[in-house]
């Protein structure tokens, strides 16, 4: 069953130096209980697309178009009150930097309880109890004491657990996690990923995981969307993408990340380089946005934007040579 249906979503920021097309014609679906990873480098539009879905951008400075349906209900045309009823209730959000994402002058217990009280009628005391229960479930020791502490008194890992408790307190059907472990150390990251997996089982929430870390994707995701310069360039099941990447950018990404243990196989030569950097989103491109960095780019790539082509039932690619590559 489709939980979230995004069709032709575009987000355009109006800046003093011209329009900035941060998200460009993005379509994807998330089914109930599924984990979809959106992968890309900085500037690829992955975070902006999540913020656009939840209408969290300052809409006096950007334009949204397309369609975003949550359980059949259009969010882009919903009014602010309707969106408020959805945020934190049907959709929970986790952000990258838990230090700045928590209010520094409010105790964590109250911040969690607030999320519950905004959507359910309950007394202050009931909400506080529920917050403590959530703190227990996200594995914070001594939750009663911790609930009365301020964010700066907690470690980075604990702060992220607080964020998770806050996002899940209303049992949302969809959880959007924007780089949830990027700011954390690897051993703490492992703890948080473990926690997210076990909570996914308990709560049955679907997850949109936004990250640049392909390792995290491989551990968490059922399906993967690769974004480049605001566009989806490839989508498929996690196994497909990692086993048979089709788009040259995806291949480059996979090659650019060193594999742990590669020295044992005696192949620690050069890493695969993707030349250059992400293009300036203000400069309108005619052809494929990746063409200037692509080794296999031909004339057609500079002239026309490739559309998404389904190469298998569970795999789509936006590359002029996608089908040929399958043969090759």
């Amino acid at each position, binding site marked *: 069953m489709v939980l979230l249906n995004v069709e032709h979503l575009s987000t355009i920021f109006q800046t003093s130096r011209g329009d900035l097309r941060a998200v460009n014609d993005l379509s994807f679906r998330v089914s109930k209980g599924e984990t979809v990873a959106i992968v890309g480098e900085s500037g690829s539009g992955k975070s902006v697309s999540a913020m656009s879905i939840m209408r969290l951008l300052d809409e*006096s400075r950007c334009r949204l178009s397309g369609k975003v349906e949550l359980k059949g209900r259009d969010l882009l045309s919903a009014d602010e009150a309707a969106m408020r009823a959805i945020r934190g209730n049907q959709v929970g959000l986790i952000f990258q930097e838990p230090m700045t994402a*928590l209010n520094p002058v409010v105790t964590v217990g109250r911040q969690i309880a607030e999320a519950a009280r905004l959507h359910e009628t309950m007394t202050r005391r009931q909400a506080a109890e529920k917050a403590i229960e959530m703190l227990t479930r996200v594995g914070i020791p001594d939750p009663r004491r911790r609930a009365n502490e301020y964010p*700066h008194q907690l470690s980075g890992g604990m702060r992220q657990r607080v964020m998770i408790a806050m996002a899940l307190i209303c049992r949302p059907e969809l959880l959007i996690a924007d780089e949830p472990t990027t700011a954390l150390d690897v051993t703490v990251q492992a703890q948080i990923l473990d926690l997210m997996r076990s909570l996914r089982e308990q709560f049955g929430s679907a997850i949109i995981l936004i990250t640049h870390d392909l390792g995290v994707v491989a551990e968490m995701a059922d399906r993967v969307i690769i974004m480049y310069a605001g566009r989806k360039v490839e989508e498929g099941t996690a196994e497909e993408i990692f086993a048979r990447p089709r788009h040259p950018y995806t291949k480059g990404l996979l090659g650019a990340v060193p594999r742990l243990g590669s020295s044992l196989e005696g192949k620690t030569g050069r890493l695969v380089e993707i030349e250059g950097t992400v293009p300036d989103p203000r400069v309108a491109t005619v052809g494929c946005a990746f063409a200037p960095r692509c080794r296999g780019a031909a004339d057609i790539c500079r002239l026309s934007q490739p559309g998404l082509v389904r190469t298998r039932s569970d795999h789509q690619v936006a590359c002029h040579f996608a089908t040929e590559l399958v043969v090759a």
Partner: protein
Amino acid sequence: MLRYALQRIVMTIPVMAVVAVFVFGLLFVTPGDPAVVIAGEQASPEEVQAIRVAMGFDQPFYVQFGLWAQRLLSGDLGTSVFSREPVAELIAQRVGPTLSLLFGGLIIALLLSVPFGIYAAANRGKLFDRAFTAVTVLNFSIPNFIVGYLLVSIFALGLRWLPVQGYVPPDRDFGAYLLGMILPCLTLGMGFASLIARVTRASMLDVLSQDFIRTAKAKGADRNRILFAHALKNASIPIVTIVGLGFASLIGGAVITESIFAIPGLGRLTLEAISHRDYPVIQGLVLVFSAGYVLVNLAVDLIYVLLDPRIRY
């Protein structure tokens, strides 16, 4: 908390010491004989000599300062050269009106500034915000005695709603006291209001751009909740700071305001002391005003603890 308070109190000691040294030292760094300065150019040599002995100027600097500091610590601010009354007593007689004025001015400043500052920040870039910015910068640029004269022209001379000037002590006629204080407090408060309003707007904008505001939105909080439950407490820290720092200019404004409205407070006393070259009184006043400023900022530091849990002890 107690330790923090103690720590802050201890930290005011060097500041006050600097003020004391400064106030005392002023007489000596200025060119010419301090006794002549106090006695005035026309004074006879005998008069000058009398002042020199009375003030102890015939003794070395450090002895004088030692004696002066010793008396100061026991609460003795010296004796007026002009009226021969103890300076402490002169100040005590005049402190009431000035306190009323400062307190009233502060209240008016806060009432005029904080709500508008918040509203402007919440509606950034819209018409209200632009008008707000223009009005604050204009108001900020008008010297407060001109504001005073404008207010008097409108409300006292024009509409005749309020008295032009004068001061009625509250124990004689409380109604008249309140009525008489409205224009002076407004005069004093308006300039300060611009400063606080600008800081309120800026710090609200700063807080509203932070990540945790997005978190609150993501939880489903509405605009008022975001403004008042999440942003205001964070934004109040710079607001409180500017109230503390600006208190010095409020005191300066009070001196001028008293002189416009003929209020017999410390400001008037200051001007009288200047015209009489009554240096002990000037010394005492500068010390008292500075102590007031330091105390207000001490209070500000203690308020921080209530507002920001990151400050510990």
